[in-house]
């Protein structure tokens, strides 16, 4: 079993900022564990611009924002990076088990920062009646397919949910040559940033339906259409308001869920509704030396806030290590 000073799980913007901050505050032995082949996390697929206005005072694309941190990290030899490494177990004593091609590894961490980000709510988690054909994607999966793999999921798209990812994907699909038939939002107003409402929906005159919901998905093998209905202030269906939209793709942009199954293994409680860890002040948890930062701590609107939050976590971890000595 390896023994390390600080272990950070997640090499996205949160993990990277935390690693750099910890180093700058005196941590000298840092292991950063990342499950993908590359650092950058979700930013790699966020090819659009709109990041960093706050943190860097510039308008950057997702990959460019990530690159600022990647460049720094690569020059800090005290930060060891293990790629393609998936943590499968975390004990109360901060022992991690992770798998990578060629080995199973166990590490005892003195301090541990969890920066595991979020997963998306999928169709399965919100009960949309109807069939389960091919063609239903979470907005993030569609984003990855288009931006990283060059694959267009479909040509006639209905987007459920007006969170930022949904709005961004409305624009992306439109530019890639698909017909974005509608964005359907159950709340009375758009849930995304105003910048996105303007530049993704208004710019392209994409039909936007607030106070509406998908009643049913149709299609045997592939999506064929959806039926949509209006709802009142109490989210009850307004009778007689149903209409159908023919489509071949349904994008679900229903929200993010912090990935905290690992810290639950370590005994840290998570809020039943949000899946956020119950914190003991700032980024601390009830396990001494176990910190959480970034979207797995709290779902932030801006990555700039993630960076700030993660710097604090890095600092706390470094201080904790100093205190142990």
């Amino acid at each position, binding site marked *: 079993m390896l023994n390390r000073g600080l272990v950070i799980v997640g090499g996205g913007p949160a993990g990277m900022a935390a690693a750099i901050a910890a180093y700058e505050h005196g941590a000298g032995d840092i292991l950063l564990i990342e499950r993908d*082949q*590359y650092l*950058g996390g979700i930013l*790699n697929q966020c*090819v*659009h*611009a709109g990041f960093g206005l706050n943190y860097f005072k510039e*308008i950057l*694309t*997702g*990959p*460019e924002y*990530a*690159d600022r941190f*990647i460049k720094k990290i690569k020059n800090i030899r005290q930060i060891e990076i293990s790629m393609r490494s998936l943590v499968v177990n975390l004990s109360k004593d901060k022992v991690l088990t992770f798998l990578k091609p060629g080995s199973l590894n166990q590490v005892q961490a003195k301090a541990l920062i969890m920066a595991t980000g979020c997963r998306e709510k999928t169709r399965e988690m919100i009960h949309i009646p109807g069939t389960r054909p091919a063609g239903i994607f979470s907005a993030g999966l569609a984003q990855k397919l*288009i*931006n*990283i*793999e*060059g694959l267009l999921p479909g040509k006639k798209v209905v987007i459920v949910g007006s969170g930022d990812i949904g709005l961004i994907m409305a624009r992306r699909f439109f*530019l*890639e*040559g698909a017909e974005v038939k509608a964005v359907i939002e159950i709340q009375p107003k758009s849930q995304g*940033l*105003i*910048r996105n*409402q*303007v*530049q993704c929906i*208004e*710019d392209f005159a994409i039909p936007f339906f607030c106070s509406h919901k998908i009643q049913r998905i149709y299609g045997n093998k592939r999506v064929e259409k959806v039926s949509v209905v209006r709802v009142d202030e109490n989210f009850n269906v307004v009778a007689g308001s149903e209409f159908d939209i023919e489509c071949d793709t349904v994008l679900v942009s229903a929200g993010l869920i912090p990935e905290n199954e690992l810290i639950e293994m370590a005994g840290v409680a998570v809020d039943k509704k949000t899946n956020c860890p119950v914190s003991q002040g700032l980024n601390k948890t009830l396990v001494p030396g176990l910190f959480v930062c970034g979207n797995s701590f709290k779902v932030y609107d801006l990555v700039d806030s993630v960076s700030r939050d993660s710097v604090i976590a890095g600092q706390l971890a470094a201080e904790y290590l100093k205190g142990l000595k």
Partner: protein
Amino acid sequence: MNKKITCIECPKGCVLSVDLQNDEIMSIGGNECPKGQEYALSEIKNPLRIFTSSVLIQGSSLKMIPVRTDKPIPKHKLFAAMEEVKRMRFCRPVNAGDVIAENFLGLDVNLVATRNSLG
């Protein structure tokens, strides 16, 4: 006539009220700061957008490299930009910041890679 546009310079999202006469801007109201004025002028006269997408690349473990224009381009050129980028096949290693295409679409703008193609 009066046109309403939402300013996006900051999260406030002031709704700007623009009075036009024969396509000439007579007045701009509703902004809480001067940025709003500039935004309204630009949006009415010549709306610009930063174009982003991805380009196919060979010789990398990545299939696509994300790209952007280093300056915003006219909004009505976005589709032409997409068509251009769809045709591209890039063949050498790039770093974030490298210019992929100069004078993109004949505009005074470069198409720039936003990610490293290696590692």
